[in-house]
């Protein structure tokens, strides 16, 4: 850099960055030098087939699994190594795989559990109203045990529950899994809506074509390595997406 030249503008700090993550389950390596960033306000999608390491990536971000090496940064600060509740307190919400609602508790209790880390009762009440505005169906189900809802309704509860924590980032693990086509569309619409309200979304999906419709950016993970990444619009037409799902034939 020559003297006098203007310093290169520092790129905006991404909200979430995974930096050279290596993960092992016993002797089996799950991630190989995984690098990934999620910019503020974006929907970023992590695609991949079975056993590609998608869900483990989610668990790494949430601190449920610890990487052998590498750093997870949230807003520039390292969070890997922190216990899960601490990470959640720093503004990460989670919509876990298969919803994982508290089935014996009511819908209202589930939603308020989402605000567990908050102390501002009035704002919580307002957010509950807002969430019910976003998911009007839930209003009539508030007193019902969450385990009795249908799969799609449970997905809405899980998303509303994550929103109740006022997260900066929501991690969603296969939000459309096991839902009927109608519900899949509805859930994807809602994800886009949540994002428009300012929440950054990082989602793991198997259903690539649908996920790419709402995502800004996507990564394709194959047996623990990122094999492809780019703006969602570019990837939508990329034939290599399909290869990734068919188990990765040798490419020439």
């Amino acid at each position: 850099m020559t003297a006098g030249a203007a310093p290169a503008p520092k790129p905006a700090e991404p909200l979430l960055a995974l930096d050279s993550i290596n993960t092992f389950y016993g002797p089996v390596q799950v991630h190989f030098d995984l690098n990934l960033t999620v910019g503020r306000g974006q929907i970023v999608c992590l695609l991949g087939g079975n056993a590609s390491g998608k869900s483990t990536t989610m668990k790494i971000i949430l601190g449920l699994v610890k990487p052998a090496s590498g750093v997870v940064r949230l807003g520039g600060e390292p969070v890997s190594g922190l216990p899960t509740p601490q990470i959640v307190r720093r503004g990460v919400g989670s919509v876990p795989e298969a919803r994982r609602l508290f089935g014996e508790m009511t819908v209202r209790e589930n939603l308020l559990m989402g605000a567990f880390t908050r102390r501002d009762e009035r704002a919580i009440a307002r957010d509950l109203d807002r969430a019910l505005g976003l998911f009007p169906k839930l209003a009539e189900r508030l007193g019902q045990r969450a385990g009795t809802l249908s799969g799609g309704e449970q997905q809405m509860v899980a998303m509303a529950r994550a929103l109740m924590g006022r997260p900066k980032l929501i991690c969603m693990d296969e939000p459309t899994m096991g839902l009927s086509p109608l519900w899949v569309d509805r859930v994807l619409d809602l994800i886009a809506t949540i994002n428009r309200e300012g929440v950054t979304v990082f989602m793991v999906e198997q259903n690539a074509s649908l996920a790419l419709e709402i995502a800004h950016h996507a990564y394709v993970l194959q047996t623990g390595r990122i094999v492809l990444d780019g703006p969602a619009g570019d990837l939508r037409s990329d034939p290599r997406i399909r290869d990734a799902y068919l188990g990765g034939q040798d490419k020439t």
Partner: protein
Amino acid sequence: MSSWFDYTLNGIIIGNIYALLAVGLALIFGVARLINFAHGSVYVVGAYAGFVAVTQFGTPLPLTILIAVAVGALLGLVIERFGLRPLQGYAHIAPLLATIGISFVLDQIMQLTFSPDPRALPSELLQQRFQVGSGTIGALDLLIAAIGLASAGLLYAFLRYTKLGWAVRATAQDRDAAQQMGVNVDAINRTVFAIASGLGALSGLLVGMYYNYIDPAMSFQATLKGVVAQVVGGVGNVPGAIAGSLLLGLVESYGIALFGTSYRNLFAFVLLVAVLVLKPNGLFASRRQTPPEPMTGTFIAPSKPIHIPYRILVALALVAALLPAVLPDPYVLQTLTNAWLYGLAGLSLTLIAGTVGLISLGHAALLAIGGYASALLSINLGVPIGLSILSAGLIAAAIGTLLVFPSFRLRGHYLSIATLAIGEIVSLVILNWESLTRGPIGISGIPPLSIFGIELDTDRSIYWFTLATLVVLAALQFRLLGSHLGRVLRAVRDDDIAARSYGIGLNRYKALAFAVGSFAAGISGGITSHLYSYINHETFNSQLSILALTIVILGGMGNVAGAILGSVLLVGLPEVFRIAAEYRVLIYGLVLLLLIRFRPQGLLGTV
């Protein structure tokens, strides 16, 4: 008529006391998936905390209650810290065994501090009685009922309306998801242990006041009663635990009315086994499912066993056989004889718990059956001693297997609890079946050991006889483990669903292993009865069951040589160092605790 009122009232009061215990056990099981066997120890500590407060400082009742609850809560935190937290990620049975170790340590400390003698727990103002219809009701009855109701109400409000209470329920339902809501589940564990133990201590204080009697030995019974009430109501189900407790209190009270006091516990345990076998989710589980036990993991810690060459084993056996010629010290020989007998029990349990994965907590019952069988056969029917011991083994195998067979459908914790209850039932039947077993008097004048009419009257001959028995049975068990059958048994342990899908009839194999194992235990009990010449229903007690389990874990589960090594170390060493009996139980508890924490695979490794 009035007596029925009194029995009902008594049942409800006792039910209230059980409920305070059972609710705590249910809460702990809910968040930690652990049956806390140290809960009875907390109850005893609560009773003694009240005793010290009242007798030393003359505290008024509300303050006494507060002290007992606070001491209990603190103790709960300690138990969580040492019994549970270090064992996260271990097999589910590990923390359960750790709490057994903790309860041994705590009970023994209480005995050493306060002596095993019972104490009176005076409760000054509560002797008043009021006339109600045809019966009377005491001020203390009302107090206990009020405390029971108040505790239940507070607990309900806590779980239902507070944020922390929600977090407790959320953690119980889905630990990972609760973490993802920002719940610090370790803190929830601590909270729950503190609440549960506070209630348990309160229960101990109240029961001490009710009977005006406390002693350190009431710990184990209290744990069992709490577990019974909880299982009857549905494991981990708080309202179910309360209902189960009241039911248990009434069943016991009416049972005493109809059959007498000595039957009280028999009813409790028969109820437990019946519920476990017929309705393992509890009587009140309409929609609630018991959390599934993991497929595998009844086994503590898989590891590679240390391989000891065949020649060395033979050499060791020869050294043991030649020992009396070199070192004819009677004290050493008697000690080692004792170790060989425990070694037989260890062989038995290491096959059942280690190789097949059925962690039995009532193993002493098999020794008791063997001991009584051989004693009664030789005394009543004049069967020659050698034959009577052999028959003792067969009878133990037959009765033991029959008793435990219905429980084979249970797994993990549930099976362990069933074996514990079956062990207690055997002991209670021995106590109550006076026409056969002479009841509490026990059997005296059991003829000394002899074989083919030759009396074994020297320490040396007895030593050789027990050693030979041990070597023969150990060699057979080695052969068994190396055979196809041995592989099948390990497959049943490691993954019963996979084993089943390969066409293995699980129950038959479990029964076979149990029978083979029970045979060795019966032989051990049979020989013991002839050596002692006197046995009663307490000769083979629950401490022996836990000692046997500690021996087996020390040696390495499933490891034949390990069972013998464990027995020599745990039975022989305290003797060599002449450690007083009251400290031995303390040592056993500590050894169990440390082993599970630091070397769960045992000294020689699991097979």
